[in-house]
């Protein structure tokens, strides 16, 4: 018997030695590993959400208002083109309706983490989410004028 044939037979015998339960245990293992990844992500997301992020809303140069993402609210703003409706719910903020032509801001959907933005160029709306530390006493976030706004 050649060495190649012997190793092929060994491989076949190896596969035959596997039992159905082995695959089950393997899948269970993979399920646990994936599930723990998912659970860790979920916990992290909840902790982030619990950190009380704040959305700062500007229209053009003007700071219109701030909204804590932990609350539930809906408000109407007057943009450069027309009215727009923003909604804060389940730790996120999104544009529900806008008077702008392309509806990019509406299609963007919700944002929820510090640094994320909602932008509506025609209405000159900028929503920027700040982390909790920017709300510490004496460190109120100065409404930034931005470096430059071009469109």
């Amino acid at each position: 018997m050649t060495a190649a044939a012997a190793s092929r037979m060994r491989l076949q015998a190896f596969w035959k030695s596997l039992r159905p339960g082995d695959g089950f245990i393997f899948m269970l293992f993979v399920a646990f590993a994936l599930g723990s990844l998912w659970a860790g992500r979920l916990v992290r997301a909840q902790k982030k959400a619990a950190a009380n992020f704040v959305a700062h809303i500007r229209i053009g140069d003007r700071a219109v208002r701030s909204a804590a993402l932990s609350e539930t609210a809906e408000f109407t703003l007057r943009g450069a083109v027309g009215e727009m409706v923003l909604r804060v719910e389940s730790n996120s903020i999104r544009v529900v309706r806008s008077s702008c032509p392309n509806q990019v801001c509406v299609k963007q959907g919700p944002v929820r983490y510090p640094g994320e933005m909602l932008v509506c160029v025609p209405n000159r709306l900028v929503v920027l989410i700040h982390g909790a530390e920017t709300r510490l006493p004496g460190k109120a976030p100065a409404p930034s004028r931005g470096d430059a706004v071009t469109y």
Partner: protein
Amino acid sequence: MMFPAQRLTRTALLTGFGLVMFLFETILPRPLPWAKPGLANIATLLALYLLGAASAWAVTLLRVLLGSFIIGAFMNPGFWLSLAGGMAAVAVMTALKRYGANQFSVIGISLAGALAHVLAQIIVAGLVIVGRWEIVYLLPAMLWPALFAGVVIGVTTLLLLEQIAPHLLSGNSLRNIKPMNDMDSHW
């Protein structure tokens, strides 16, 4: 037919083997402090298959205890983690071997032991030692290496069983081990 003295000596032999594997592992450099290959589990699996559940328990518990004496970790946090992991692993493996209706090969049993080992350790670490359940963040980083290690240990034990099982079960000397390319051996 196995005589008690024979079984005792073979259990002791496998305990020594597991202890050597355990000590070898502590020397190996590890990228993650908790990711040990679990080579000592080979000894537990061999004991389970060749000598029975009681021997598997003895091999595991003695290895954890003596190993901690040797590396000076007796009653350390790491010792309790080892003990919990080892006990959970051997409990699950003996149960699967006994009640698994022959649906598991040694690879599946090794994998189940690795899974039980990780879960028991994380529970003990989370509840008793760290006291914070955020330790679940560590689970993926523990489970993926354990999956790999479980397969490797299972295949290794399978090959070892193929080579030594006929001799140990028939009471023959271990010196008459067949060459690797002999095909009519037990898998």
